[in-house]
């Protein structure tokens, strides 16, 4: 849990830096999928991150695992971007850095705002076919065959590259970096930091200015919890628990737990 509200009430922007420094679990799975394609078909992998300068850490991690190049989109003007603005920024970066890409892989969702929107919106922005929540994929020339379980339907899907896939956390198990990989990543890191003008965007096209949504307020769901702490002898605690909350627990069970003779207290 974050001890400080990761939100700037003046600007209305989420402070991503409090959650930075770790790669999203789903993004690790997306990188794993990329690494497997690289191993079987040969590929050049560019890892792209957008965030404050310290987000560079995840790019080191990606390089240590086997990505060939890292691109960090870091510019104050990009702050406060919602998914619409983010997808526009990422698309511009991809067109600048790697215009002849074959495949874009994204984690199916992030763990901070977990909207799962950026991937599908990026496919729209790049005007390429896209598929979400993919568990496995195989590539034959420019044909990508994918499987997913969605809404109780097992689906086999096909599309032609260039395309975009958001990778679910259930199909790929991320690998751990070898020590040599970590050494290499830090010895000769190929990481480029780019700002708004580097990717050919007008400042009005990034960050909060380009975001139709506004955050009015952020509140903690735990702040209004009374958080009663019970400690001491286990038997005593359990009796206290049922005495104080027997109505709530019994209500959910559909049974009456209240009337009980306390023979041993």
């Amino acid at each position, binding site marked *: 849990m*974050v001890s400080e509200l*990761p*939100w700037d009430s003046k600007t209305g922007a*989420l402070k991503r830096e409090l*959650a930075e420094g770790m790669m999203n679990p789903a993004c690790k799975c997306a990188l794993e999928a990329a690494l497997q394609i690289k191993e079987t078909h040969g590929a050049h992998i560019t890892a792209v991150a957008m965030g404050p300068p310290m987000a560079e850490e995840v790019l080191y991690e990606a390089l240590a695992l086997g990505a060939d190049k890292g691109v960090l989109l870091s510019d104050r003007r990009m702050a406060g971007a*919602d*998914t*619409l603005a983010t997808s526009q920024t990422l698309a511009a970066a991809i067109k600048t850095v790697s215009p002849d890409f074959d495949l874009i892989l994204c984690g199916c969702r992030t*763990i901070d*705002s*977990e*909207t*799962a*929107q950026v991937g*599908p*919106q990026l496919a*729209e*922005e790049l005007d*390429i*076919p*896209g598929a*979400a929540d993919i568990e496995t994929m195989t590539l034959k020339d420019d044909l990508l065959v994918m499987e997913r379980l969605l*809404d*109780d*339907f*097992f689906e*086999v*899907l*096909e*599309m032609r590259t260039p395309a975009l896939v958001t990778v*679910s*956390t259930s199909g790929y198990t991320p690998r751990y970096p070898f020590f040599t990989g970590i050494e290499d990543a830090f010895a000769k890191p190929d990481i480029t930091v780019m700002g708004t003008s580097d990717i050919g965007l007008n400042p009005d096209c990034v960050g909060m200015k380009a*975001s*139709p*949504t*506004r955050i*009015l*307020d*952020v509140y*903690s*769901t*735990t702040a209004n*919890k009374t*958080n*009663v*702490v*019970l*400690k001491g002898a286990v038997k005593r*605690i*359990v009796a206290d*628990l*049922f005495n*104080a909350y027997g109505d*709530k627990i019994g*209500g*959910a*069970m*559909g*049974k009456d*737990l209240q009337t009980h003779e306390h023979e041993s207290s």
Partner: protein
Amino acid sequence: MNDETGSEIWVFGDYRNYFQNRVTLQLLAKARDLSRKISARVCAVVFGCGIDEYVAEYAAHGADKIYVVDHPGLERYQIDAYVALMERLCRERSPEIVLVGGTGFGREFAPRVAKRLKTGLTSDCIELYIDDEGILVQTAPAFGGNLMAVIVTRDRRPQMATVRPGMFQELPHDYEARAQIVRIDPPADPPPERLRVIRSDRRPQTDRKLEDARIVICGGRGMGSKAGFRKLFELAQLMGAEVGATRPVVYSGWANHDALVGQAGKQIKPMVLFSFGVSGAIQHTAALTGAGFVIAVNKNPDAVMMKMADVAVVADAKQVCSAMIKELRKRIRP
């Protein structure tokens, strides 16, 4: 033809798992509620082939008007075709609000529609209301459910939101209710099917016991061993509860993957949640947003899960589990 004035609230008719998943009906009820404040008409929008039974259901559950595109080419849920149709209808008829069920398909469909219309979308809303200026105020979890963000789309239309199943209550079936049915022809030149569905087989219905349980008992590594974890089932049986597990527990083989509660597993919304020996990793707590009263048991009073709880019991999780089993046997009358 279009004689009515006034705004419309649209609900995307997601009927693929109609009998298990009532999210469209739940959204129609919510739309009814929202419509009062802005005097809007509640409209369902449904695409498919041979879908009259759903049209009738939506009419009976709160829709004033139903836009229907019924065509063999739309028999299967197909992302490119569905997005293009929704985009076109939104451009032609300018709805004020569009609500989409947070199913797997909805979560892929809604962002694409929002992107094409260059409007805002808030996913997984747990609360929606209209403020005094007539703006849709959307509350959605952020940072693994520890925080709630209150979000608006002020200047663009439609205002879009997705909502997970089970967040709102559907209206009772009203046999007398009648809706205006607007049948729309599919486009003469449908967009190319860039993502092709080769196979789509219904899987045996996934067990939804955990998602729908009134009481859930979640166990973490603090239960110590597989035998320790099994004790939770004994407690669950006494309470009529379901047992959930954290990822380390599933990885250790103490519980099946079906029991995984978390980002990669199931979302739960019990009235009462017991959490035994769970530290509270964000991947787990993200799935607890809908839980009502939370009782956490952990030796470590500083565990995140303990801070999130209404009642934090500082004690060994296994011992508390055993003591609760004893206490309940005394308290439950035969």
